[in-house]
């Protein structure tokens, strides 16, 4: 049986470790923020989005937020792999449910991601010329971020249960993340792709996160927002169940 205090204790451990390392916090906010602002400002003068009367920065900002959110995918899986040979054993002899360990880890990772993302989002929104969507737009953005973080955390857990060591996990993650990031419509519109490639963007869950956040912030979207949400909810649930299943199976051995 899963109890609240169990999840809270696992969550607290991760948060303590997070706050014990201020350099890491600053890095995790600064690096993506710089990347987004530099790409956005750098390309702003040279790129116009065909058919849309908006700056590239406005177009790319929402996509950038979505891309940042998948950072969680790397970190959750990584923290599980890091603990695999060490602390996880310590947690397994404690009288708590194995699912509490998993949920506590995911929630702590989501908390950390959201904390750093919120800072980033506030700064990005500040740079927007067209932030006329108000508080509900930002609220919806956070909602989408949450779905992306949840889904890709599950994805990270699935990958982490396949690999024993952090090195091969990182290698595969990098190979997978590049197409996910660049074929999501975050950096350029989907119709920039040849027709025969389009299907890749359609099965990429991040596409729907980018699309949803773009609609929430600047009112432009490719798909309907309801479809974006539905796709992400399905993706997140599937990944979480698969992740939990593999995690539990790995522990049994």
């Amino acid at each position, binding site marked *: 049986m899963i109890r609240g*205090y169990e999840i809270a204790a696992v969550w607290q451990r991760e948060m303590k470790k997070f706050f014990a390392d201020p350099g890491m916090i600053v890095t995790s906010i600064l690096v993506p923020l710089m990347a987004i602002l530099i790409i956005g400002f750098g390309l702003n003068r040279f790129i116009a989005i065909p058919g849309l009367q908006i700056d590239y920065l406005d177009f790319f900002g929402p996509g950038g937020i979505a891309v940042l959110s998948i950072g969680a995918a790397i970190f959750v899986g990584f923290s599980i792999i890091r603990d695999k040979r060490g*602390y996880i*054993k310590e947690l397994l002899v404690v009288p708590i449910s194995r699912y509490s360990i998993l949920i506590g880890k995911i929630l702590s990772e989501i908390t950390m991601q959201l904390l750093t993302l919120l800072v980033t989002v506030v700064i990005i929104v500040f740079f927007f010329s067209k932030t006329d969507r108000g508080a509900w737009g930002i609220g919806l953005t956070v909602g989408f971020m949450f779905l992306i973080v949840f889904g890709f955390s599950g994805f990270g857990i699935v990958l982490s249960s396949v690999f024993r060591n952090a090195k091969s996990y990182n290698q595969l993650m990098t190979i997978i993340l590049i197409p996910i990031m660049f074929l999501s419509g975050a950096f350029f519109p989907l119709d920039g792709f040849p027709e025969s490639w389009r299907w890749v963007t359609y099965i990429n869950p991040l596409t729907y996160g980018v699309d949803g956040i773009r609609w929430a912030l600047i009112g432009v979207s490719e798909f309907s927002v309801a479809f974006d949400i539905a796709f992400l909810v399905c993706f997140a649930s599937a990944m979480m169940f698969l992740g939990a299943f593999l995690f539990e199976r790995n522990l049994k051995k």
Partner: protein
Amino acid sequence: MPAVKVTHLVKNFRQKVAVNDVSFQIAQGEVFGLLGPNGAGKSTIISILTTLLLPTSGLAEVCGYDVVKKSRETRRNIGLVFQETILDEDLSAFSNLDIHARLYHVAPAVSRPRVSELLSLVGLTGEAKTKVSAFSGGMKRRLEIARGLIHQPRVLFLDEPTIGLDPKTRRPIWDYIKKLSRETNLTILLTTHYLEEADYLCDRVAVMNEGKISVAGSPKELKRGLGGDLVRIRLAAVPAEFLSRVRQFPFVKKVSLKDTEVSLVVDNGEANGAELIRLVHALSLDIKSFSLREPTLEDVFLHYTGERFNSYT
């Protein structure tokens, strides 16, 4: 009710038999040592008793709970210090213990004083706020022992508690473990292949070899089981009468002579050694030296793990 009860325990890994029909019991408050060479099955038994591994067959109970069917109750009653160091190095000693207390649902009002108490028990009071990454190997071990005790377990498992530590660091850890077992009614099961460690700490030991327990008993019994104590007497000259009189003592197991030195294997050497000296005096012999040595646990270990037992001759 014994603290730990293992009955016909078997654990197979694919083709390999790691634990082969092992049975033993540990009484409450006892310090019990599992000795054996690497791969003898010691750590496998600990993993089963601490619910980390499922046995292939047989029964294992801790504090009366079946470790398979009542794993949660078992876990609540045990503390475990792993063979490898498992600590959050980026957190302070206090935080490491505090998080552990939370995982066991010990309320902060209860855990705070207990944390300081345990830190002082393992001699780390001054280091409560220090990050663990700055600790030496011995300090980390002591912190792990403190962590294993925070939820007041009834049985503490120590898997190779001093492995990788230098002899100077090892000693204080032994003393803390000893103090712990003296001052509380804690049952301790430890594995080790340092024989002095087992001899110093354990009330009872079991020597394991290839998945089986070869012999079990108190270190004293085991050593006695090898035949007795070794006495060496060097005389100016050894008359035949002395040797024949010595052979008549019922407590003398074995006599051998080399030059002017008589080596004997003797039951209960401390009391009977005096008897031998009395004989030397009665015969008015000129005694040059006298020595008495108990067999060490190492002799027992080597004897039961297949290596040739070096007898005293």
